[in-house]
């Protein structure tokens, strides 16, 4: 595809024009989404939530190379933080903007809590412990009826308010999520290029060598877990305020797997890959609605096929947002 585009526009000026037009088209598309039908706005909200989750998990898997199969636990921590602090469950009704940082901070604490015992583990072992951790959190949510409402979950959660404006419609959430994705996206990109990001890359490529050149692997790994968990917590708070209902059903092992698949099919360790993966994996099941009863079967088959045919993901790791912009705009 890339070579075809290049061939179309041989002259540098034409090339730049095509690039600028493509960029403008994406921006216009993003602005047009709220004017489309409610179904499409909801779909876009879903894509954005999973993009956010993907950004978070990508820090741990893509940058630091630690396979986390229990990411949904942090998502659940964020969601239940909002659910319990802004609902009749305990009669507490804190404002949205107060809970947002609390949810993120609490998730970060859980991230460190998980991070400390698994510090010496790597690879498959780490994957399995994090998987177990995610399941333990879900079982606890399911069984601590007095606090979490058990399998029924927490209902009648407050609608979030920003100043005097109540966020109720999927459209307002679209803007909130789009803004948050942009902020987190830039943050993650800056992190990737920071000294911390370089340390993560070093650990990912060779932990012993990284320690050899003086990287404090403990601190750096815990930072990855904490930051990634806090992004998961943020997404959870927004999810709870959007659904206005949470139950353990939303935080199963399959959800963790979906997020891992998003970043792996998109292209691991790359923000563009996360976005591509989120769009692909959330939109694909919707496209398969035509074959309603075979939908999940076809989805599973496509996932396996995508991984087998393109194990490195749709977007190569080196093709980041900066290179995309340069490729589109520069001659």
């Amino acid at each position, binding site marked *: 595809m890339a070579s075809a585009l290049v061939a179309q526009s041989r002259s540098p000026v034409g090339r730049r024009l095509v690039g600028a037009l493509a960029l403008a088209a994406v921006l216009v598309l993003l602005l047009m989404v709220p004017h489309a039908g409610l179904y499409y706005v909801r779909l876009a909200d879903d894509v954005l939530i999973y993009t956010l989750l993907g950004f978070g998990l990508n820090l741990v898997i893509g940058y630091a190379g630690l396979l986390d199969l229990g990411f949904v636990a942090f998502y659940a921590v964020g969601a239940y933080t909002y659910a319990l602090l802004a609902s009749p469950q305990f009669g507490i009704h804190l404002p949205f903007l107060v809970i947002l940082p609390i949810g993120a901070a609490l998730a970060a604490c859980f991230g460190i809590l998980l991070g400390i015992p698994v510090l010496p583990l790597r690879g498959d072992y780490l994957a399995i412990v994090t998987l177990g951790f995610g399941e333990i959190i879900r079982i*606890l949510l399911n069984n601590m009826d007095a606090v979490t409402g058990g399998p029924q979950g927490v209902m009648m959660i407050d609608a979030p308010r920003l100043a005097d404006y109540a966020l109720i419609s999927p459209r307002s959430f679209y803007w909130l999520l789009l803004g948050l994705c942009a902020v987190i996206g830039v943050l993650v990109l800056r992190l990737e290029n920071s000294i911390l990001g370089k340390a993560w890359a070093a650990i990912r490529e060779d932990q012993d060598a990284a320690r050899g050149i003086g990287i404090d692997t403990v601190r750096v790994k815990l930072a990855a877990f904490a930051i990634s968990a806090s992004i998961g917590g943020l997404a959870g708070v927004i999810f709870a305020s959007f659904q206005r209902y949470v139950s353990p059903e939303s935080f199963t092992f399959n959800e963790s797997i979906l997020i891992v698949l998003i970043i792996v099919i998109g292209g691991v360790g790359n923000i563009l890959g996360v976005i591509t993966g989120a769009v692909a994996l959330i939109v694909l099941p919707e496209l398969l609605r035509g074959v309603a009863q075979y939908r999940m079967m076809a989805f599973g088959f496509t996932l396996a096929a995508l991984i087998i045919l393109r194990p490195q993901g749709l977007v190569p790791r080196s093709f980041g947002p900066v290179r995309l912009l340069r490729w589109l705009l520069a001659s």
Partner: protein
Amino acid sequence: MASLILQQLVNAATIGAIYALIALGYTMVYGVLRLINFVHSELFMLGAYFCYGLLALGIGGIGPAPAFGVTIAFFAVFALVGSVGVTIERVAYKPLRSATRLAPMLSALGLSLFFQSAVQLIAGPQPIQFPSIFPSARLTVGGAVFTTTQLLIVVLAVALMLLLATFVSRTRLGVLVRAVSESPRTSALLGIDVDRAISLIFFIGPGLGGLGGILYSSYYGIMYPTMGTIVGLKAFTAAILGGIGSIPGAMLGGFLLGFVEVVGTALLPVVSHGLLGTDYRDIFAFVVLVGVLIFRPTGLLGEQISEETMVYKRDY
């Protein structure tokens, strides 16, 4: 009191034997390919469904089946699920052998979703009552009541495990399997057909897992498309507990996990004065899992791995 303990021990042995049988598939595959075969839990589920289908076809109805039909069904399920396992390895794992370790794990998860929804589509998502394929007379020994089904499950599972142990340690093909799991590269240099050994492992492991599915479903009298998920995770825990890659370890781990789970569930409401109920049953496996991996990642009978990196020393 003594009868209560005996009763729980029998229950633990039954479920433990099933865990052990399934754990063998995880451990054998991991031993050779260093791969968590996530699709194994679905093969376990397929075993139960295949058996049901065969019995329904064979005797034109579901009722207490004649022993001959059941025996045939056991062999057929072993062969069928084994073939599915070999096909999965060829299609989904072999092309990814040089890719990152993450890729085969995820293609397995995709396939897992595929099998679950395929079975849901064909047999329906609702639980199906499983025919009682074993005679289910009640036995009372020392005050403990158990059924002949439980007894047969333990006997069959242990017999299968002994058979596997003999196969691996006494036969030529078994030597092949052991050599390849010791070091695929050296085995290839010595002229062993590594792909053949891997296919053999992907035949035996899933085959045993499928038989585990039959035993599980006849113990609980029920089967459903998602039954593999949680049992698979528990069997995997058993494999880790015993030391992943070790065949005797998987057997020991299965029985031990069954024991921890049954006794733990029975004791929990008593110890916590009714605060924590039996709902927490599923948490034991995961607590054991996390505990073992953190304090003794090699498991009980596992091979020595370097502590710092958790990478098998012989990989270097």
